[in-house]
């Protein structure tokens, strides 16, 4: 990998992000009675998309919002403008990543979803999000934030609305913990504006649909597991190389499983909730490939995992896959709405680096330091920041946040008593015989058993 390319500046990036920041500052104070500085931020966003098909609608929305009279449709237009700007940032960052990884480029594109009828719950969510925009992050209080709870509860039971429900649930929990907004010492302005605009766009009917791209048959070679969680949801995503049975070119795919959860189910409890629903997690822990027959796949390269279409295959060392197959694999396309820097997670194999640990852990590759995001290593697993610091090679995900590229370790090879040992972040995904792992599993089993017992007695009465 060419780390030098990741250190170079990208033309136009700072300007695009400056317009995003200007809008984000307007949301901090809220758009009920905007001050001149906030009006300026709205204008800056509108100017940034002046050369696009969004221009007229966003200019109108910015004008109305600056006068404190924006309607819900105007807020949607502003969210769309911000999303489009970050989409362009995503594209520029990805071009650079493709050059750095040196992998062949996928030619596929993902079509936009069709329009659908608006559901009442989507309308309710949009209304709540509009209230948030008016109050601003500094104006949030328990009354405003509490409006999300009934919407989320009603949405969670409908699988078609799970994406927006999960997003709103995690977002609202952060807002609840941050009330009253007037007392906040600092505000995660980029993050909350991200969550707000994404939720806003997901209230457009059909926006959450990703088109299918048929089925795949062939061999799946896992690289590693990425875990994402908030207080009441968890997702495990396996990144893997897929080799088609018909001899076509290998391609990168993902397979994920997610579930809402009580906030007291943490650590190894997450694996226990997910494990029964995806046999791939066990295969990853055991270091095996899987043979797929007719597995559905989206246009974005996400397998819609179904155990009936998969069976456990031969042993497959992730580091062998990373060294030999990964360099020839094509990257999947990204759906229009998913073009956002936070969504970037490009599998890479790194070796021959020097590790440094000044402010944060870094891998220095050919003289260029790359920050290692050790905070993303899940606690319920055998991989630790210390093991990463002592490693000689690494399978990771290249990401970008707050102005810099960084690598999230999925697995490392280290030398223990002159032997090379691989340690995987998702090593406990399918279960473990590790002493610390067994203890964590036991504690998690007990927690879920207590909650189920309580639920059995107290629910439906």
């Amino acid at each position, binding site marked *: 990998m060419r780390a030098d390319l990741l250190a170079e500046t990208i033309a136009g990036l700072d300007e695009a992000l400056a317009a995003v920041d200007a809008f984000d500052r307007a949301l901090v104070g809220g758009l009920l009675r905007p001050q001149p500085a906030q009006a300026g931020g709205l204008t800056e966003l509108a100017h940034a998309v002046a050369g696009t098909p969004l221009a007229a609608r966003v200019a109108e929305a910015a004008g109305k919002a600056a006068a404190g009279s924006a309607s819900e449709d105007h807020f949607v237009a502003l969210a769309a403008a911000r999303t489009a700007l970050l989409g362009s940032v995503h594209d520029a960052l990805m071009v650079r990543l493709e050059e750095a990884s040196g992998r062949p480029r996928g030619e596929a594109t993902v079509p936009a979803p069709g329009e659908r009828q608006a559901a009442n719950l989507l309308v309710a969510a949009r209304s709540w999000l509009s209230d948030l925009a008016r109050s601003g992050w500094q104006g949030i209080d328990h009354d405003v934030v509490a409006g999300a709870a009934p919407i989320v509860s009603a949405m969670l039971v409908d699988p078609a609305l799970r994406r927006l429900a999960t997003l709103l649930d995690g977002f609202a929990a952060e807002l609840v913990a941050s009330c009253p907004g007037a007392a906040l010492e600092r505000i995660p302005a980029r993050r909350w504006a991200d969550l707000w605009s994404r939720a806003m766009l*997901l209230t457009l009917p059909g926006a959450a649909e990703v088109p299918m791209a048929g089925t795949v048959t062939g061999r799946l070679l896992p690289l590693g597991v990425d875990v994402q969680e908030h207080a009441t949801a968890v997702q495990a995503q396996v990144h893997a190389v897929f080799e088609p049975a018909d001899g076509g070119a290998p391609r990168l795919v993902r397979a994920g499983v997610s579930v809402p959860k009580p906030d007291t189910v943490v650590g190894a409890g997450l694996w226990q909730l997910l494990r029964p629903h995806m046999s791939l997690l066990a295969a990853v822990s055991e270091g095996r490939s899987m043979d797929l027959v007719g597995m559905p796949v989206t246009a974005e390269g996400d397998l819609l995992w179904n155990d009936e279409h998969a069976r456990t295959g031969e042993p497959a060392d992730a580091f062998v896959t990373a060294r030999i197959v990964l360099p020839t694999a094509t990257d999947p396309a990204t759906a229009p709405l998913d073009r956002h820097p936070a969504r970037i997670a490009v599998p890479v194999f790194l070796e021959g680096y020097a590790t440094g640990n000044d402010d944060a852990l870094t891998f220095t590759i050919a003289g260029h330091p790359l920050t290692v995001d050790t905070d993303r290593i899940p606690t319920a697993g055998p991989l630790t920041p210390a093991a990463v610091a002592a490693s000689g090679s690494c399978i990771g995900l290249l990401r970008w946040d707050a102005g810099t590229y960084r690598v999230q370790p999925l697995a490392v090879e280290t030398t223990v008593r002159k032997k090379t040992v691989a340690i995987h972040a998702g090593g406990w995904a399918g279960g473990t015989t590790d002493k610390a792992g067994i203890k964590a599993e036991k504690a998690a089993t007990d927690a879920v058993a207590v909650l189920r017992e309580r639920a059995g007695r107290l629910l439906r009465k």
Partner: protein
Amino acid sequence: MSDWERSSTARVIAPARPRKLAKVPFVELADGRLQGVVSSGSDIERVYVSSVGARTYAFACSTNNNRPCGGARGSFCNHIRALINEAVLQYGAERVARYLRVESADGEPSGQTLAAAMSATRPPQGDTKAAAPVFSRFLRHLAYLELAPTTAPLPEMQWFPPTRAVA
């Protein structure tokens, strides 16, 4: 703006720390109160809904059928003390103290020192009107166990990375 303010994945709340749930299955810092559900020691069908308000430390404890707790007259009952201890395990003493506006005495606060500091102000008895909404939030919380997992992609979770930081 700082890097944290310009981060899409800035960590805003630390994840709950694991704890045993048998005695106090539900704890939350919400609605301006520390509130939760405490299992009865004697009757497996009964739970108590207990709470302590921020600033005033007004306390309340009653069963889920809205019968007052015999112990919560004039001062914190054992249910409330258990609730405070478990909240400290789940969120860390510092966050609980901050939420309830308890001025910390010398040294690291604990469940006991927090309860003692709040008791010492002779807090008023609160009303038990909040019991019903807290109990329904507990049921909502339990209902999360009944929701089906999905293998459909959830790209929004990219904004919610794990963190090794603890509360």
